[in-house]
């Protein structure tokens, strides 16, 4: 192969690398939880690669639902988060959760701490607008931030430090599956 061809390939690669990439701001993934299901599509596997999970999420009118009784309606659906170091997410994890309750879209911090669940109300959001979410992983606690509201700290019980922190994607429930197709747009910020 001649040097000219190699140079041409290098040139094409350089053009692709530095000009043709999709703008970061456009990297929105639309997750759909089909009616009767818990898990969202697309199914993805990804691990946390920094001590902060920062993203924007936008619900729409599909986030409005009626499960027919208060107990199920007051059950948290999961938005996004991560399992803690090498732990199953029902052992140690930190996630944002949401529910349609009292005619509002409520957002919660939702953690498992050594197998014990802890939930804290963070605030409400409106459908059809992007809101800013972040979870910062500190040595002894998680910090949940929703928009400009006061951050909420939850003690971290995992003593593990180095290992796999897998991302937890949108999930409906609770025990009840999605009553209709529910979609949410998520844009992870790096």
């Amino acid at each position: 192969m001649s040097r000219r061809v190699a140079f041409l390939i290098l040139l094409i690669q350089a053009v692709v690398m530095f000009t043709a990439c999709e703008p970061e701001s456009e990297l929105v993934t639309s997750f759909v939880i089909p009616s009767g299901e818990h898990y969202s599509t697309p199914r993805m596997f990804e691990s946390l690669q920094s001590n902060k999970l920062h993203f924007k999420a936008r619900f729409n009118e599909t986030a409005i639902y009626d499960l027919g009784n208060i107990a199920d309606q007051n059950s948290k659906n999961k938005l996004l988060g991560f399992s803690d170091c090498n732990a199953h997410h029902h052992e140690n994890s930190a996630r944002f959760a949401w529910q349609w309750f009292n005619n509002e879209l409520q957002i919660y911090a939702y953690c498992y701490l050594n197998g014990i669940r802890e939930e804290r109300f963070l605030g409400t959001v409106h459908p059809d607008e992007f809101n800013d979410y972040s979870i910062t992983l500190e040595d002894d606690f998680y910090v949940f931030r929703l928009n400009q509201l006061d951050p909420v700290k939850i003690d971290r019980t995992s003593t593990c430090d180095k290992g796999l922190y897998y991302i937890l994607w949108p999930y409906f429930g609770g025990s009840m599956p999605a009553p209709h197709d529910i979609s949410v747009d998520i844009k992870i910020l790096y």
Partner: protein
Amino acid sequence: MKTLLIVLSCFCTLSLHAQTVETLLGVEKTVAGSALSLRLGFATKRNIAPGVFAQVKPRIGFSETTSDYETFLGSYLQIPIASSEKLLVTFTIQGGFVDYRFLVVTPLAETRIMVRRNLGLVFGLGYRYGYPSATSSLLYRFKQK
């Protein structure tokens, strides 16, 4: 320390059997920005090459508790898929820790073009942060006699 000794002893053993020592200096473009990477590996006669790598990427817009740079250190295994005299297509699996903490495993498909006997260009497509990434590297091979 024990792990480090085991890894080093493995590489010492491999280097004795290796036909070529390879170094790659390059850039990986990801959705989270561009990272500078350095790789050192030992290629066998069949172009199977285990090695170690280091990647550094400036961090943008992070809290005061994190450093300005993200480091990704680990080891890799390169497996040849197809080869000709001056071209080599490989599959590479990289695994290591980001910021000495977060375990990350990434696949990479690469094409090598040898421009000179010891000098080559390497282009690849990988998968980082849930999205495709592109790599471009300069390869230098130290051949054993």
